[in-house]
């Protein structure tokens, strides 16, 4: 039960993060890009759709046991394929691309964003680990004294 709870919590967290990010990016584009005016009638559904595309596949990244490196990479590949497929389907429905080259451009953008998110997450974790190790050293020294 608690496993299901934590998966729902994790997915909901991703849903709201993606939703806010999409709204924020579109708002910035509206503000700074001349001629960019993207607020169609179905805007809330588009944003929530993007949130769901990010959130539902993220269930794959919840592990009951610590995964091996191979398991983790495999899940990441499936996760990426599902997200990519979701975005391409949403893009096709909303007319984000009209030919192959535009579809390719969207795919490339998704790949770059995906790698960027993982890289930022890794470096954030690395920084946290360094801070914890520093605090651990201090904690153990204080305890010895």
């Amino acid at each position, binding site marked *: 039960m*608690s496993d299901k709870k934590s998966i729902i919590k994790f997915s909901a967290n991703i849903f709201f993060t993606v939703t806010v990010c999409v709204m924020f990016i579109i708002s910035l584009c509206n503000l700074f890009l001349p001629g960019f005016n993207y607020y169609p009638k179905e805007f809330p559904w588009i944003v929530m759709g993007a949130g769901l595309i990010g959130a539902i596949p993220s269930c794959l990244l919840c592990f009951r046991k*610590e*995964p091996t490196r191979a398991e*983790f990479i495999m899940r990441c590949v499936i996760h990426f394929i599902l997200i990519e497929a979701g975005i391409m389907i949403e893009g096709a429905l909303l007319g984000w691309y009209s030919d192959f080259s535009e579809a390719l451009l969207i795919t490339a953008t998704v790949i770059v964003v995906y790698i960027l998110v993982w890289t930022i997450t890794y470096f954030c974790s690395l920084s*946290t*680990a360094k801070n*914890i*190790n520093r*605090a*651990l050293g201090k904690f153990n020294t204080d305890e010895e004294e």
Partner: protein
Amino acid sequence: MFNVTIQQVDPSDKEEIVVKCHEITDEVLAVVNRLRRNDSILLGSRDNETFRIPLKEIFYIESVDNKTFIYLKENVFESKLKLYEVEELARGTKMFRCSKSTILNIGKIRSVSPSLNGRFSAKLTNGETVIISRQYVPVLKKKLGM
């Protein structure tokens, strides 16, 4: 820091220790746990024998299939307590819940490194590795005063 006052009482009066605090924090509980020496010990059994295990010697405590195991540097003992009971007993000590099934002793962590999927792995002084779940990282940080 606490002010320490020692007051001598008449032999006919009962000896006691009173802790006056604004709030029952982990620091206060740590002091109380040190005073109650018996609370710093867990009972663990192995080969039909029961042993008194000081908390400071415990590396981590893990719950597997509804059984609780106490891991020391080299030995493993079984405890009759549930993990939440051990957690309650170890409040205010160096032990903290690091995942749903594990309680870890901070004093036995050699280093921490990022693991897959936002988790952290803690390398212990006996060479073993224990996973710290993402949601328990703030607990560790708080314990370390970060």
